[in-house]
């Protein structure tokens, strides 16, 4: 795949949102490896005007929302994603934040872009370890542009203790089995988000990032 990196006809700069919650460089490294233009930015203006956004993240829900609110990045992302309809990819904590609210160490309001709540994983077997860390297979729940071209083996790297919970199956792009099913990816219009880390999931993960770079925000 590397030796066949696709040429893009116009520059599409991806803004990787830096809100102080870790691992932005991993995503940047992956995109650079793929020959995709991207920059890490904490500047709300750059985020507001970005062609497309990636919201990575590792850490606590409450602290993350506080950072996003305080810095003006939340408003900037709302403008780019909700009003301008630009493609958005959330990763791990970046996926959880799109929920209505998060219940990690308190009750916090999320971005509210995809209805749902972030709750502690509760595997049905007490011997099952927490956090959920390692490679697990995802079950793809439909035809999604970002999931095109994946290898037949569908394991991705997860590391989390909390998960997105929603009653609306239409928004579930993929699920995963860990002592019960949980949501592995959500999709709504121009918003796509994964609980797993594509930038840490080798070939399949790189495929998702490449697909995101070409995605215009609509369905397949």
């Amino acid at each position, binding site marked *: 795949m590397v030796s066949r990196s696709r040429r893009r006809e116009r520059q599409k700069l991806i803004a990787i949102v830096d809100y102080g919650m*870790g691992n932005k460089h991993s995503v940047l490294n992956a995109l650079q490896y793929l020959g995709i233009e991207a920059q890490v930015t904490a500047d709300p203006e750059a985020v507001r005007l970005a062609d497309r956004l990636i919201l990575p993240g590792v850490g606590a829900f409450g602290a993350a929302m506080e950072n996003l609110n305080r810095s003006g990045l939340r408003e900037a992302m709302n403008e780019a994603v909700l009003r301008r309809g630009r493609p958005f990819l959330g990763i791990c904590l970046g996926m959880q934040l799109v929920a209505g609210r998060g219940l990690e160490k308190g009750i916090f309001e999320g971005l509210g872009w995809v209805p749902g709540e972030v709750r502690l994983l509760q595997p049905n077997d007490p011997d099952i370890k927490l956090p959920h860390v390692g490679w697990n297979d995802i079950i793809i729940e439909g035809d999604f542009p970002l999931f095109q071209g994946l290898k037949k083996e569908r394991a991705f790297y997860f590391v989390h203790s909390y998960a997105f919970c929603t009653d609306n199956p239409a928004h579930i792009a993929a699920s995963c089995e860990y002592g019960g099913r949980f949501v592995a990816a959500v999709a709504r219009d121009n918003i796509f988000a994964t609980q797993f880390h594509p930038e840490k999931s080798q070939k399949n993960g790189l495929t998702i990032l490449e697909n995101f770079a070409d995605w215009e925000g609509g369905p397949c």
Partner: protein
Amino acid sequence: MLKQRIIPSLLLKDGRMVKGKNFGQFRDVGDPVTAAKVYNAQKVDELMFLDIRPTRESREQVCRVIEEAACECFMPLTVGGGVQSVEDVKSFLDIGADKVAVNSAAVRTPELIRAAAELFGDQCVVVSVDYKVNAAGDRTVWIDSGSTDTGLDPLEHVKRCVALGAGEILLTSIDKEGTLEGYDLDYLDEVAGSVRTPVIASGGAGRLEDFFRALTETRVSAVSAASIFHFTDQSPIKVRFFLSNSGVNVRV
């Protein structure tokens, strides 16, 4: 369901990979950056880099290795060796590590575990516990690259670290390490069964059968190995095929 993991560990000394036996007699086993690329090509589950003689210079070398590895290897990277402060943890995370292993500091300044877990998330903190069996037949924790006996009981120490926020435990038998004679299975199962946090077995893998036994006869979540990959014709990819063939849930 979650797969069990095979994690190559890369011991670093003076910028090269080394491997020894019982934490001594180290031999050069290659270049850590190209080794990371080799392991990446073999689609390993993750990599662990451990600086065995941490100094200021070696820290810089290790950082360069991680930075280069992070440019072409897209899987979780754990780094350890000489981590004593939150700044140390942050500096490794900033250059591309996903997890940081804490060893001696977990004994001397255990509050580091809590501080790092709170600032960066518990999934970033791996507590590495090395132990040996003493003359009386008891296991005790050793630190400072296996040169100082703390007298602590490893299981109690692990439980304390988990309570402080450790995301994973790396448990290494110094007696077995580098011998290629198999893991310390009973004890691994005892520890892994006593905590909810994932435990990674380390020390002793020499044959394919050793991986199979550790993953099916104990409650560990992952196994780490080095000598078998450096000194025999085995590779992580061959190991995973063998394990999958034997019914173990691993990536192929």
